[in-house]
């Protein structure tokens, strides 16, 4: 299953935040979306998961325009973990995860044994099974984030859209969440801040700046010292680590805004 944005622009209160961006996630590909704060990553993702409407262009799943699908239909195929916003009502962790089953249910159908099993499995994957009866609002930021991922897992989708999924998480759970997502074998589009995590997990990246794609390609080809300098305005060194065999980025202190 593939998802892509075709020349999507998004305008918010008269300002164009995203300008003709085309990104594509091929079947089972792990795609990273990079860019500094305010570069339009979140806005682009929101237009992909239908919270914002593009002012031009289209978002397609397997070539079919999502505007022609019901919300339920797109929710059966695309799961989302976004940055958590506050909620005024409380639910238990288990109830929260079970809501991931909503797109597969009709108004009157009950939660079946199967739904509970799926929810339980999702909680186990994010290592939160012991929390199933806890109230969601009493959880820490990182725990909430893992529950939201569990909810998206319970949705059993073929495409996951993640907006900074590792926010609020300590390093153990950053790696755990990325491992879980990677192991699902589904298409992933993730906005990420951490370049090292990007290098560890992403097959392909797009780099956004001021609402436009400034670079794209296989992760290791794109993340270079020159690009980081150009996009994030910091100096760094990109090296191959002898143990992992992967590239990693080391930043230099005091390098902001110097040079060029």
């Amino acid at each position: 299953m593939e998802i892509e944005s075709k020349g999507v622009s998004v305008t918010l209160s008269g300002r164009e935040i995203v300008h003709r961006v085309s990104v594509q996630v091929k079947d089972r590909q792990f795609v990273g979306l990079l860019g500094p704060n305010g570069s339009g990553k979140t806005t682009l993702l929101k237009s992909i998961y239908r919270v914002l409407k593009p002012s031009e262009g289209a978002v397609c799943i397997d070539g079919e325009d999502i505007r022609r699908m019901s919300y339920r239909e797109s929710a059966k195929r695309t799961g989302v973990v976004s940055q958590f916003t506050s909620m005024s009502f409380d639910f238990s962790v288990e109830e929260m995860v079970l809501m991931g089953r909503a797109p597969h249910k009709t108004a009157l159908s009950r939660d079946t044994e199967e739904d509970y099993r799926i929810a339980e499995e999702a909680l186990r994957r994010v290592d939160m099974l012991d929390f199933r009866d806890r109230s969601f609002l009493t959880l820490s930021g990182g725990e909430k984030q893992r529950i939201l991922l569990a909810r998206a897992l319970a949705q059993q989708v073929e495409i996951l859209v993640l907006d900074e999924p590792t926010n609020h998480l300590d390093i153990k759970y950053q790696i755990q969440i990325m491992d879980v997502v990677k192991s699902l074998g589904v298409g992933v589009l993730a906005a990420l801040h951490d370049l090292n995590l990007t290098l560890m997990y992403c097959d392909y990246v797009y780099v956004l700046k001021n609402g436009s794609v400034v670079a794209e390609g296989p992760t290791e080809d794109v993340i270079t010292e020159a690009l980081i300098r150009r996009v994030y305005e910091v100096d760094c060194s990109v090296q191959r680590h002898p143990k992992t065999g992967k590239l990693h980025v080391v930043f230099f202190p005091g390098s902001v805004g110097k040079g060029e």
Partner: protein
Amino acid sequence: MKSHINRRHVLLGTLILVFLGLLVLSVLLSVMIGAVPISLKDVYRIILYNTTRLAIGDADTLTHGTLYEIVWNVRTPRVIMAAVIGVTLAVCGVVMQATVQNPLADPYILGISSGASLGATFSIMIGASALFTGVLAAMGTAFWAFGGALGAMGLVMLLAHMGGGRLTSAKLVLAGSVVGSLCGAFTNMMIYIGQDAENMKSVTYWLLGSMVSARWDKLAMPGICLGFGVLFFLTQTRTLNTLLLGDEAAVTLGVNLGKWRRIYMIATSLMAAVAVCTCGIVGFVGLMIPHIVRGFAGSDHRFLLPLAALSGGIFLIWADVIARVLIPKSEIPIGVITSAIGAPIFVYMMVRKSYGFGGAD
């Protein structure tokens, strides 16, 4: 594999049955109480005969006489009306809170109560015949109250849509309070220039709500409308749960938020308007009952909605009993009772702290 039959769910399911039993019991017991005490046996006999034609004892007293009149034509419709209105307001409160994602919302949030007050005050203080001729002039207070409620609702929706953009809860709440104070100003103006003590009393009486007018023929319409409304919402619990998660989460879980929010708001407001024009403005029930029930049943609408509905019915039946017996030979407006009971309970819940009014502490 652990069975999904969760202990909590069993408990809440049982509670629904218990509350259903309590509601039936409340109906039977409350018909006994009043200026003329009537034995449970007579109440049971008369209600049974008139609903199922099963005669117990002297058949003549089942369809004639003072006892029959009081039980079947005065108290029973009144108690049923209290139950219907209580169920409706509680359900509308729960749905409205979910729809605008604000635990402080009540069924009147779209200006229903202020619009209805304006309409009713106009009808009582000035009188429709002073300004209109023909059909409009002949319409009673209930008509003007309903009209006022719909007018206010339309205005709120219009204001909330103004300036484009999506329909957000904040816009609705603000538009609701703007229309509320506008209608309030006109209502007060009419009362002030009216200066007629008798009319003023009937306005006050109307605004505070009463079940006094209940009769079988007047009960049919609201009963049917509200019954369908409540049944509709009982099928919507899954969508309602999703709405509580917030706009964005609802969309990503496949709920067409804009569409459902509009449908729910219009449906609850219409139901509230029907309730208001039937028996005046009964305050606090639609706000308080959902909170109290959420305090022990949680936010899951599969349990919250039926439990709140039953609690609302039971609560209003007993509030109405108090309204008619507290002062002998006189009636207290039911809104006074609901607020007088509701406020201390609310304070207790605030002090108890374990309940965060929907949010975390």
